[in-house]
């Protein structure tokens, strides 16, 4: 082929790729599911919530600027600080990680898109609706007003907190948690299975390591909160006494479940921000990051240890000292991996030739502030010190140093660094310098005095304070600092939003970075990557010869979209060897519709419109079924395709080779975590009661749970059998098993519910019947979902969409049923057998 011919071929390839990956035009733009569009909407929305929460923060500072102030009423002040914390954590800190990862992870991995683009879209719309619902409540004077951790009994009793505030918090945020878990599934599968050929685990960008760790943490941290939310709502809506000591409940269970989520959450917020530093620091030190393995140690180690810290938020609750000791020890231990990261960055900077750009300025500010916050963290990790500082402004100072130094400054550094990638233009260095110094000075002016005012005795969450406390000056300084800080941030916002039509595009790879995401052209193309590159180094742009030229010419894999379908490559976990070409779905309104009806369900439940809630539930199930039916497990027109360089890959895989099987596995891991949190609740109540079950309570007995477990076993066996029958081509038998299995599953769920009903367990009387009912309902609902899945497979099989060779659906459903079987066994063992073993009736 001559050069001219080659150019023509390349041009034709580019046109096809561009057409396939183009965003829809006009109002249909909002049906887009491509990671770049979703990621940018997601990021913009979370920053909008951040600004909203920031204004609330300023309102707090105005109220506290002088003693005996009445700028806000006490009740409204409570709503303001509750929403400030809630929105900053749930609507900004966590979502913005997911948002940024959705934009840059595929770029960094040389992937055209993440494996489930419509799931990202669904997550985004859930986030938007839930966030507006929670924040909007403030404008009706109906916002939650009991602190971002919603401690009962303050929040469970109508006489303390009348109105819907707590329900809005619980249901609105539960809905957003679902979105977070969806994003976590997407990001884990993306990192493990969508890397470019050759990007072995030891060559993966450190950002991807962090994403992997953090997304996995979400999977184990958010479900306990969901379980807690379920118990909480059952108490608020139906008077089931989980947190009411007069009927056997205990408010401490909420604190445990909340902080099992709440502490890892701090690291879920912090690690992705540090991940940005791990990308920025090498670029501006102009060398590879030192201690790659040490960063992996730090990320994985922190991910684990952060789960052993939850009770350090509960040091003053009267737990036995030995228990406090365990959590104190883990809290000190987590400083080790955290410190390792800081030293790795410092060592890299010291051995490189550092270019002092705006992102680097924010990186140094971040390190300085975070180290201070970390040191006060080591202080409050010691129980005796914490008893002194607990619930004072010392803790407020500590947490803002950690979060603003550990998360906001790195994020702003990341915004300056990655802005050209998203918008093809540079942010202003001059404004950036202004923004940095205003933010840095303002932040320290606002929060440094709080260490002192806290130790002197300024309590948290108070509406106002008397002049005699002598803290007027310190508070005034803090308030002035807060406004300087806010001004600095507004400079960033202005720079981002100002019209830049006449500003020239940034040059390609403007920072001279070494990692894959900087292959992007300016302005960027929607196709993600021109061709899927072969990776042989950690910094391919720096170290691989002719890399950009080969990439641009499409000399790597998949340079074309000859069938006019959106495709990305799936590779192996360890060594990223090519496995499959994955067809990914294009624009659709289905994720948005599904999110709207799911949101409607949660919102209607908040206001107790039960019939309407049921209708919304029906619509939710219907919309998800339509989405799955039309948008998943396509049977490709040919079994394999040539992806270039002599490589032929299958277009369809099922079972463990398929990304959807991984997604099912990961989702069910999260689901199992929520389930075990409820089981933890059962045993928690057992430990605090001398008699559990209480005397005179006789249920759920052995008979009905026994019947249920037998039916569950049969349904599980059917699900197992279907897979082999289907593969063997015995479609009639397979279909019979699908129908039968579904009916057995419904029977199993029904029998499980009949046990507590038949033995007259009354959930409002005591916590024992309440928790038994909860476990049974949870398991029965999962049985219903399992039945629905089997009927879905039956319908797919009858329509010829599930065949002996194209069996993604049934293999995923069989996997679901493994989890289902374990859940049924644990439930029955807990509610039926355990009372016998523990000597109850």
């Amino acid at each position, binding site marked *: 082929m001559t050069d001219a011919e080659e150019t023509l071929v390349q041009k034709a390839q580019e046109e096809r790729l561009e057409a396939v990956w183009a965003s829809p035009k006009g109002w249909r733009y909002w049906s887009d599911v491509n990671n770049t569009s979703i990621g940018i909407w997601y990021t913009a929305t979370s920053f909008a919530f951040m600004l909203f929460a920031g204004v609330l923060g300023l309102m707090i500072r105005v109220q506290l600027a002088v003693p005996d102030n009445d700028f806000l009423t006490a009740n409204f002040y409570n709503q303001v600080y509750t929403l400030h914390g809630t929105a900053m954590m749930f609507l900004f800190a966590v979502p913005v990680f997911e948002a940024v990862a959705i934009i840059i992870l595929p770029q960094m991995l040389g992937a055209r898109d993440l494996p489930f683009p419509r799931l990202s879209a669904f997550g985004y719309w859930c986030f938007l609706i839930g966030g507006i619902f929670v924040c909007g409540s403030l404008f009706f004077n109906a916002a939650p007003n009991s602190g971002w951790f919603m401690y009962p009994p303050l929040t469970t009793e109508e006489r303390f907190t009348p109105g819907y505030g707590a329900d809005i918090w619980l249901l609105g945020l539960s809905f957003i948690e679902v979105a977070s878990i969806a994003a976590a599934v997407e990001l884990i599968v993306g990192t493990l299975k969508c890397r470019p050929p*050759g990007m*072995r*685990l*030891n*060559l993966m960008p450190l950002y991807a390591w962090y994403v992997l760790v953090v997304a996995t943490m979400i999977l184990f941290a958010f479900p306990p909160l969901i379980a807690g939310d379920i118990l909480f709502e059952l108490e608020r809506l139906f008077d089931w006494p989980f947190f009411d000591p007069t009927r056997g409940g205990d408010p401490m269970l909420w604190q445990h479940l909340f902080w099992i989520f709440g502490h890892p959450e701090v690291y879920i917020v912090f690690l992705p921000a540090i991940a940005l530093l791990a990308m920025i620091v090498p670029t501006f030190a102009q060398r*590879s990051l*030192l*201690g*790659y*393995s*040490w960063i*992996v*140690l730090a990320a*994985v*180690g922190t*991910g*684990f*240890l952060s*789960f*052993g810290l939850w009770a350090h938020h509960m040091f003053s609750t*009267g*737990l*036995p*000292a*030995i*228990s*406090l*000791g*365990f959590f*104190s*020890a*883990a809290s*000190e*231990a987590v400083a*080790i*991996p955290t410190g390792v990261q800081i030293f790795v960055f410092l060592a890299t900077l010291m051995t490189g030739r550092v270019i002092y750009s705006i992102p680097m300025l924010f990186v140094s500010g971040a390190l300085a502030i975070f180290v201070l916050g970390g040191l006060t963290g080591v202080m409050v990790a010691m129980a005796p010190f914490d008893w002194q500082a607990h619930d004072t402004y010392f803790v407020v100072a500590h947490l803002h140093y950690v979060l603003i130094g550990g998360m906001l400054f790195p994020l702003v550094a990341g915004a300056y660094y990655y802005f050209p990638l998203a918008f093809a233009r540079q942010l202003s260095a001059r404004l950036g310098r202004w923004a940095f110094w205003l933010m840095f000075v303002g932040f320290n002016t606002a929060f440094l005095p709080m260490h002192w005012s806290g130790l002197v005795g300024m309590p948290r969450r108070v509406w106002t304070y008397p002049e005699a406390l002598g803290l007027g000056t310190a508070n005034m300084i803090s308030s002035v600092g807060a406004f300087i800080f806010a001004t600095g941030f507004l400079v960033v916002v202005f720079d981002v939003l100002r019209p830049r039509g006449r500003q020239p595009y940034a040059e390609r790879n403007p920072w001279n970075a070494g990692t894959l995401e900087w292959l992007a052209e300016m302005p960027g193309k929607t196709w993600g990557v021109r061709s899927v590159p072969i*990776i*042989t*180094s*950690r910094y391919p742009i720096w170290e691989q010869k002719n890399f950009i030229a080969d990439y641009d010419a499409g000399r790597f894999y998949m340079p074309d979209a000859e069938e006019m379908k959106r495709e990305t490559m799936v590779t192996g*976990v*360890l*060594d990223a060897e090519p496995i499959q070409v994955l067809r990914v779905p294009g624009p659709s309104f289905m994720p948005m519709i599904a999110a709207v009806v799911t949101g409607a369900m949660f919102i209607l439940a908040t206001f107790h419109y039960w019939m309407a809630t049921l209708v919304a539930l029906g619509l939710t199930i219907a919309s998800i079924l339509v989405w799955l039916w039309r948008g998943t497990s396509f049977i490709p027109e040919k079994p394999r395709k040539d992806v270039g360089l002599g490589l032929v890959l299958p277009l369809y895989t099922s079972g463990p080779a398929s990304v959807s099987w991984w997604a099912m596995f990961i989702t069910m891991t999260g689901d199992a975590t929520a389930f075990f949190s409820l089981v933890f609740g059962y045993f928690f109540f057992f*430990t*605090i*009661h*001398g008699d559990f079950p209480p005397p005179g309570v006789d249920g759920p007995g052995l008979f009905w749970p026994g019947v249920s477990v037998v039916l569950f076993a049969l349904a599980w066996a059917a699900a197992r059998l279907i897979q082999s029958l289907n593969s063997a081509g015995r479609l009639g038998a397979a279909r019979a098993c699908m129908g039968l299995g579904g009916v057995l599953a419904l029977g199993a769920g029904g029998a499980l519910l009949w046990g507590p009903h038949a033995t007259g367990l009354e959930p409002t009387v005591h916590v024992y019947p309440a928790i038994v009912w909860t476990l049974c309902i949870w398991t029965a609902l999962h049985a219903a979902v399992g039945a629905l899945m089997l009927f879905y497979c039956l319908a797919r099989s009858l329509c010829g969409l599930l065949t002996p060779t194209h069996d993604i659906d049934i293999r995923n459903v069989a996997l679901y049923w493994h989890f289902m079987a374990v859940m049924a066994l644990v439930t029955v063992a807990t509610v039926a057998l355990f009372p016998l073993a523990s000597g109850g009736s």
Partner: protein
Amino acid sequence: MELPNQTRDTLWTLIATPTIWALHFLFCYVVAAYDCAPNARIFQTIEGTRIAIAVATIVSLAAIAAIGWRAFREWRAGEGKSPHSADTAEDRERFMEFSSLLLAALSFVAVTFGAMPALVFVDCR
């Protein structure tokens, strides 16, 4: 040089030692919480809990040390040079071994930390 019975490292072997830490942590917490619940008789001594924690700690530390030693031996025997950024399955293996070693060291320290409260606290106060 390849050692006999070389383990193939995966993400699961990588997280083996912190998982032991997690189990040890949970065990210590649950045993103590169960022993002291409902936290009414605070001067009740907790001999049983302390012995159980001691046993769990020895077992956990031994397991972590064994896994760490395995990773160290295989890493040292390997040809690859730090920072293990070569495009070979061998270097990926060396990287995983070295990271496992680091995590084993961290887990060893964290388990030791976690056991220390059992040395000082003798009752449920």
